[in-house]
């Protein structure tokens, strides 16, 4: 599969000024490896007044954030289109999302890798700004999946602790992205395996396990 020009899953019609700005920015970054020197240069190329840009975005970084949020949204819709989606449990839904996201990132690999290499250099565990919008929607999505999992008892109900789950899963997402950025195997096969193993582990942890039994015993002993 050759690198195609990234397709953007957006609500706007393709010819809208917003979509044109986004596409032009993406093209520039792909060609030059850096953001354009100024907003003026970009809008000039598009024959748009500079103010038009600021109607939609405050900075170039805002476009980057939106591009990542688009990846996440597209992955969720595409994964849910799979005919078996409804039969999937929570673990499989999350896996389905990761694998679809990986497909999308592979299609946009130049941009995605560039953006990750630029932003993941900071402290491990800290969310780069560029992923902020993506993270918020991801946490909502994981929250829903986990709620569903609690209903089917795939996920253990642990009041207090469970509010923190989406954040923990976000760390997993960062781990996956970091792995993807460093993976040099053909077709990112090791990333596939990493996702499979990481998700299995996380659902072993949030499912009913030793921890719950231990807690149960402690509660019993304390209560007298």
């Amino acid at each position: 599969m050759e690198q195609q020009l990234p397709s953007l899953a957006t609500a706007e019609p393709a010819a809208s000024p917003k979509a044109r700005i986004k596409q032009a920015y993406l093209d520039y970054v792909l060609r030059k490896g850096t953001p354009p020197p100024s907003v003026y240069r970009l809008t000039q190329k598009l024959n748009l007044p500079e103010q038009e840009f600021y109607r939609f975005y405050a900075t170039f970084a805002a476009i980057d954030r939106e591009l990542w949020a688009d990846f996440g949204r597209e992955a969720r819709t595409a994964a849910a289109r799979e005919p078996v989606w409804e039969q999937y449990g929570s673990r499989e839904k999350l896996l389905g999302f990761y694998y679809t996201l990986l497909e999308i990132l592979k299609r946009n690999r130049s941009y995605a890798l560039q953006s990750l290499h630029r932003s993941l250099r900071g402290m491990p565990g800290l969310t780069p700004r560029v992923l902020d919008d993506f993270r918020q929607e991801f946490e909502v999505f994981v929250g829903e999946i986990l709620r569903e999992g609690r209903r089917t008892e795939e996920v253990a109900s642990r009041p207090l602790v469970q509010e923190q789950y989406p954040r923990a899963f976000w760390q997993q997402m960062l781990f996956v992205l970091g792995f993807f950025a460093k993976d040099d195997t053909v077709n990112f096969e090791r990333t596939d395996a990493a996702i499979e193993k990481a998700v299995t582990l996380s659902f072993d942890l949030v499912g009913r396990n030793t921890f719950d039994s231990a807690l149960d015993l402690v509660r019993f002993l304390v209560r007298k």
Partner: protein
Amino acid sequence: MEESPKPLSSLPTSKVARAARFAKTGLNVGANYVKHYARRAVGAEAPTDALHAANAAELYGTLSEMKGSVLKVAQMLAMEKKLLPAAYADQFAQAQYQTPPLSGPLVVKAFRDAFGRSPFEVFEEFDINARQAASIGQVHWARGGGLTYAVKVQYPGVADSIRSDIRLVKPIALRVLGLSEDTVRPYLLEVETRLLEETDYALELQRGQEIAAQCATLPHLEFPRYYPALSSARILTMDWLPGQHLREFLATEPSSAVRNQLGQALWDFYMHQLNTLRRVHADPHPGNFLLRTDYGGTVAVLDFGCVKEIPADVHRLFTALLAPETLADPVRLAALLEEAGVVRPETDPAQRVFYVSTMHTSLELVGRPFRQAMFDFGDPAYMQALYALGDDLLQQPELRQQREPRGSEHFIYLNRTYVGLYALLTELRAHIQTGLR
């Protein structure tokens, strides 16, 4: 016939269970080492012999528990038994790579990577729940265009994991076995090559088609058709064949005529491969055959992942060792053993006599089917003799102390083939026309 096989968890000799057994052995062997070094640390006399005996006993227990009679036959065939210190050799030949099951989404992803479509688009119907574990993946059931398919899906990145695991394990294994890398290299290389070949589905497809075509004239055998258009490096699609695995099939109490015909079909299949094709399906594990009573007994052969090509000189040597004339002629036997690397010119005379006589006993027993026109694998006396000799061999201090690999690396998979075949025939209690005239 049974079209709805059991789900993964209930496979009787599942690889998972086997892996668990091995894992336990690993722990115990490790513990023996701790004891050994602890004793040394306090200055006690702790001969390596004792350690090795403890480890071998541990392995021996595990192996016999897992494979029953198979182990005994292995010991008989074991000219290469002495290639590695007792019992370890089996573990090498049995080496199979274990992977965890694939999740539904990962199966879908494998299809998207290979064909750009999900399995539900590729087939009219696809069961996302695996029907069976395969050595490095799993088997799914699918239907489309009036045919039913078995679709093998491989775990991502297996070849890489095998390579890196061998790199990780090798130094530890050498330490445990007390061997130098130079002497073991050919054997390790042989096993690594076979394991890696198993990850190559394109190769398996090609070999499956070739061997099926070359065995088309043999009666009562059946091979699946392979579908290259529905296969890729990590997906292998073939016919879904009817039939039951050995244990389940035997539970239906088939008549002796059926059992004999099935056994004969297997025997002919293997002799044809060994002697005519010089390449052999080297994994006669019960999971790779499906049996049914049609036409008085039909065997379906699956899984050509592990195929051993036999070099001409190795074939000649192997055949010569099993030939009746060799047994009657000690000089000839010694010469052949020397050629096979079991006995070396520098071996001292006393040891030499010992090796030759041990091999003579082993070969007499193991080669017995080849010296009769008709052989009864159901005969309890034969199996008892094999058991007894196996135990004897394990008790031999000379063999236990053996530190140096002996024999040709090609024997590893040849032996595994014979071991597997004898075990299948024994379970079938088959009377075999050996083809001897």
